[in-house]
Structure formats: structure tokens, C-alpha cells
């Protein structure tokens, strides 16, 4: 504790350590020193305060107490301030010191007010500490979810989403091309073959309802493949009299010499 401004009175190192640990930074100690002296902060002698602070720091150093940087910074600044305050009045440097001293006194007054307010708050009846609110609040509200939240922008957004999705589906879905398959051709040839009297054109075996030229060519190709397959197994004979000419076919049982 600091009960006297004299450095010599700070003899007990342990007490000093305990003491400094109780402070929240150098400003806190300065304010406490002022309080200990019952100094009026309005007319405080900053010079006295500086001496006391420096003596505490000196005492701490003597017992090799490790001090945080902000303490040392404050000590250095106060030493500078003291040097200015000791100058004869009137000099520019002395004026600088007075301004700095007033700024420090102002900060101490601000901190003193803060401390007073903190104490005032601490003396109020605190909810949950000194006074208590209803422990079992009753919920008087009822939720009605029957109504719909509708807005026109939501409707338009939904419409656009639906239309875009539909368009996207249409664009990217490959149109299924209806082609007559080799399987179809095999079935049709097998069904019609028995009723054929003589060589017949392959194209006559195609179904009647084929639309586009592409589908027609595809069907013809399927029929040829089916015919080749059936010729291989001996069910029919195929022949083409000249290049690009019509392909003719005949049942296999009629003529064993067919090509």
C-alpha cells in the first residue's frame, strides 16, 4: 500500500508486489495515489503525483519486480513531464509541460468519473442478483399459420422458373428418331416370305407408313441386313443384277443356286 509519498516508506517488497497487481494499469495507480493523498483532482499537483508514481516504480525496480511495458512507458513519460514542470515558468517548454499536466489531470478526472459510475451501478439492485423477475413466464401468444404469404414477384419468379425449365428440357432432349430396326425387318421378312411366288424387290417388304427419306433409307438398310442374315441361314436367296440396281429376293427352298 502507498500510505506515504516517501519512497523510503515502501519497504516491504511483498506488499508492493501485491499492491501493483491490484492495479489496472498505471493510470489506475496514479488515480489511487491522488486518492490516498485526498488530493482534489481539480487542483491536484501533478508534480507531487509524478514523484509518488516514480518512487513506486523505483521501488518495484529495486525488488526486481517485472513491470509491463505500459508502466515503463508511463514512467518515462512522467519523468519527461517532471523535467518540463521544473522549468521556470514562461519558457515554451514549461508551457508544454503545463498543458501535458492538465491533459493528465483531465484523464484522471475522467477515470474517476468512470469509477464512480461503476460503483453507482454496482449499488443498484441488479436483476438476477438482488431482485428477480418472474421465473415461469407465460406465453400468451398463439401462432396462426393459416394464411398464405403470397406476392406477385414470387408468382412471376415461379412462372419464369417453370418456363425456363420446360424450355431447357425441350432443347436438350434429343428427339427420338423412329427407325425401322433390323429386328423389325427380320420379323416382317419372315412373315411375308412364304407368300412370295418369285423374285421380288426388297423395297416391297418395307412397311407402308415410313415418312422421311432418311427413315426410308434406314428401313431399306435394315431390310438388307435382315435379308443377308436370312440368306446366310438358307431361308432365302438375294441377288442384284447390276450396281445400284434393285435388290431381289426369293425364298430359299425354290432355287438352291441363288447367289
Amino acid at each position, binding site marked *: 500500500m502507498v500510505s506515504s509519498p516517501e519512497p523510503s516508506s515502501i519497504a516491504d517488497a511483498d506488499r508492493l508486489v501485491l499492491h501493483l497487481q491490484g492495479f489496472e494499469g498505471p493510470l489506475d495507480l496514479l488515480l489511487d495515489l491522488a486518492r490516498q493523498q485526498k488530493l482534489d483532482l481539480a487542483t491536484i499537483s501533478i508534480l507531487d503525483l509524478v514523484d509518488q508514481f516514480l518512487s513506486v516504480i523505483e521501488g518495484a525496480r529495486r525488488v526486481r519486480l517485472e513491470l509491463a511495458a505500459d508502466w515503463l512507458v508511463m514512467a518515462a513519460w512522467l519523468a519527461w513531464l517532471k523535467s518540463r514542470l521544473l522549468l521556470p515558468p514562461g519558457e515554451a517548454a514549461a508551457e508544454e509541460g503545463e498543458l501535458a499536466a492538465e491533459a493528465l489531470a483531465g484523464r484522471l478526472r475522467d477515470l474517476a468519473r468512470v469509477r464512480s459510475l461503476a460503483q453507482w451501478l454496482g449499488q443498484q439492485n441488479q436483476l438476477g442478483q438482488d431482485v428477480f423477475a*418472474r421465473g415461469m413466464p407465460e406465453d400468451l401468444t398463439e401462432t396462426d399459420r393459416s394464411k398464405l404469404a403470397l406476392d406477385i414477384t414470387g408468382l412471376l419468379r415461379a412462372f419464369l422458373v417453370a418456363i425456363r425449365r420446360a424450355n431447357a428440357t425441350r432443347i436438350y432432349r434429343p428427339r427420338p428418331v423412329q427407325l425401322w430396326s433390323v429386328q423389325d425387318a427380320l420379323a416382317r421378312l419372315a412373315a411375308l416370305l412364304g407368300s412370295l411366288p418369285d423374285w421380288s424387290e426388297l423395297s416391297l417388304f418395307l412397311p407402308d407408313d415410313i415418312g422421311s427419306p432418311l427413315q426410308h433409307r434406314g428401313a431399306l438398310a435394315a431390310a438388307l441386313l435382315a435379308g443377308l442374315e436370312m440368306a446366310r441361314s438358307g431361308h432365302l436367296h438375294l441377288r442384284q443384277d447390276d450396281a445400284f440396281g434393285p435388290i431381289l429376293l426369293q425364298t430359299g427352298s425354290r432355287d438352291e443356286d441363288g447367289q
Partner: protein
Amino acid sequence: MTGAAQVLQDDVRLAEALVFASAQPVQSSALLRSLSPEADLDAVMAALQSLYAGRGVELVQAAGGWQFRTAPDLAPRLRRVIEVPRRLPRVAMETLAIVAYHQPVTRPEIEEIRGASLSQATMDALLDAGLIMPKGRKEAPGRPTLWATTESFLAQFGLSDLRQLPRREDLLIDPDAHPQATRLANPPASGLADPPASDVADI
């Protein structure tokens, strides 16, 4: 006040505060532990109960212990109804939008336009909400029902009639297919007075 009366009043105050501040109903045994040693619990609670007789709050003893609760007769006036409107599911909103723009429209047509099938539940939700209604049948195989929006649909969306919906062309901004729509989306400086521009702003 006699000494005994003072003790009773002290105990009534403490019991009141304890039951008030407790997060659970307070058991008689717990009250007895806190009250003065000579307290007659029945007398204390009877005195407390009489303080609240006819008030907006009453002291009741339920299975769990003592508790305060607001007077039941006030319940209707205390109740605050909070409306938390539901949102329509996305599918229902899309369906509603398609009906709005293509009405009268059949369900298969809606499915065709959405490019996805439509569940009965979605149709039911829109019917229950009074947003769509049947409007005759289409003269086509199977005579499917035609659907249209209702008066309530207009009211709920704050529309006076269907023409207040932005036109389809103004909505579908596709630079290739709808050069006109592109112009609408970026009205020239001179176009401020253009009716189409205000249509876009309506969206």
C-alpha cells in the same frame, strides 16, 4: 401490528417472492425450509391466496407445487395471435403461375408447360387455398377439366384483374427469340414515358 402478525406478514412476502421468482412450481417442503421456523404454512399460503383473490393473477396449488398463473377468465383478452403466413411450396407456386398465364388450362397442359408431372397434392393445395377453380371441360378426348384462377387469387396478390399481370413477352427476356423484350429490359433514356417500360418496373 403484533409480533406474530409481523412474522406472518414477513413470511407471506417471502413466500410470494419465492413462488414468483421460481422457475418451477414450489413444493411446500421447499417453502417451509425458507420461511421462519414458527411459520404455519397453511396460514401463510391462505393469506397469500386471499391477497390475489379476484386479481388478474392467482395463486394455485397443482401437483407440482405452488405457482402463480394469470386468471383464466382473462385468457381471451390476454391472448395475442401472431400471424405467421405460410409460403406456398415451389411446385404449387409454379403451377399457380402457369394457370394464371394460360387459363383456362388442363392439368396435362400444365404438366407439358412445366416439363414435369404434377401431383394431386399440389392441385389440392391450390384448391384448398381457394386460388384456382375448375372452369368447364375441354372438348378433347377424355374431356379434361379446365382450370382458372379465382377472385381470391386476385385479392391475395393485390391485383384488380388479370390484365394487371405483366405480359408474357415482357417477362421472357430472350434476346434471340424476343428482340422486343430486350428493348423493354433496357429502355432508352427517351423511353421513360413508354408504357412497356413501366410494365417492366411493375415486375
